[in-house]
């Protein structure tokens, strides 16, 4: 019996040791991931890197992954479902650091990152392609779907790429300080207006890619939203999705930066 127990312990240790750990390498927090489904890590490359560490910060439980299954077709790979299920776990892990993930296309122009946010299918990625079309290298992708917002002590925010970059899988590899947020709506005409922070509370709050498990987390999320809205401009843009709408957005960003520099 002692021999069997030793064998079971050895096998158990091997199973633990077999689980490879990967570390996130862009934001500086270095969250460490383990995976239920070997191969799920491929979806997160190149934003994670294999590490020799044996401890991890995030591992989605099988039942947690299963709870996400209904959002995908039956044929969707388990590894993909696991990869997607990690968005919220990552955001929750980062909350104590005033950091979280937001649902937006993040584009760097004029040295700053502009978050183009809207419900799926509204035309966020179209705006990026338009900007790329119009401005070439001057418009650079930071993240195509779920950028990571990292708050520093003075309230400034750096926007980082994350492994969740949208169905087009445009993998940004740069970070940039946040300039502002553009809330997109579809319409028959192109128009843009600066919103009062109080107007933007609900849309910004609901675009943060995290819902709290606890009351404490709810307050942390509210604090992040407050910091975003107090320190960064939010515009509402009704748009046709054409090049003119993107030119309007870009000109708005450029003018804002110019005004900020003039104020200094």
């Amino acid at each position, binding site marked *: 019996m002692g021999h069997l127990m030793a064998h079971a312990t050895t096998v158990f240790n091997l199973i633990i040791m077999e689980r490879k750990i990967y570390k996130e390498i862009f934001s500086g927090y270095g969250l460490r991931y383990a995976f239920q489904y070997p191969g799920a890590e491929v979806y997160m490359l190149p934003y994670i890197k294999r590490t020799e560490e044996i401890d991890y910060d995030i591992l989605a439980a099988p039942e947690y992954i299963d709870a996400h299954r209904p959002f995908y077709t039956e044929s969707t790979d388990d590894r993909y479902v696991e990869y997607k299920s990690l968005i919220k776990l990552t955001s929750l892990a980062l909350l104590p650091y005033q950091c979280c993930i937001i649902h937006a296309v993040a584009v760097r122009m004029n040295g700053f990152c502009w978050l183009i946010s809207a419900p799926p299918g509204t035309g966020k990625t179209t705006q990026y392609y338009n900007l790329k079309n119009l401005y070439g290298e001057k418009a650079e992708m930071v993240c195509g779907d779920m950028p990571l917002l990292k708050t520093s002590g003075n309230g400034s925010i750096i926007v980082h790429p994350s492994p969740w970059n949208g169905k087009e899988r445009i993998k940004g590899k740069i970070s940039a300080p946040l300039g502002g947020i553009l809330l997109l709506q579809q319409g028959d005409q192109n128009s843009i207006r600066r919103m009062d*922070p*109080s107007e*933007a*509370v*609900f849309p910004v*709050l*609901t675009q943060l890619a995290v*819902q*709290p*498990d*606890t*009351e404490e*987390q*709810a*307050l942390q*999320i*509210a604090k992040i*939203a*407050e910091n975003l*809205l*107090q320190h960064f401009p939010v515009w509402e843009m009704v748009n046709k999705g054409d090049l003119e709408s993107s030119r309007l957005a870009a000109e708005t960003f450029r003018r804002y930066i110019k005004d900020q520099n003039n104020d200094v």
Partner: protein
Amino acid sequence: MYKTRKGIVLTSICGQYVLVAAKKARENCPYVTQINETAADCWRLLENGSTSEALTTYLIEEYDAEDASLVKEDVDRLLETYLEEGYITQTEENQHEKNE
């Protein structure tokens, strides 16, 4: 008697009052709802349990309202909304009064 459900936080963001529901509470109510100042006042009273009459009395005094019946109507409508949305629950005491 009405009481707020556990796991819901009243917070203020840029001067706007917002109810944010944590995980367990979201089984019964929406994740986020924006409310006005009066509704936020009522919420604070409901956190310790309150009745329609107590809320009405408080609001009349707080806002120097002249039309008590109008205030009562607004309070009842608010309580109905909170109940429908799952933000508050009703204790047996109040239900018993309702059945009479």
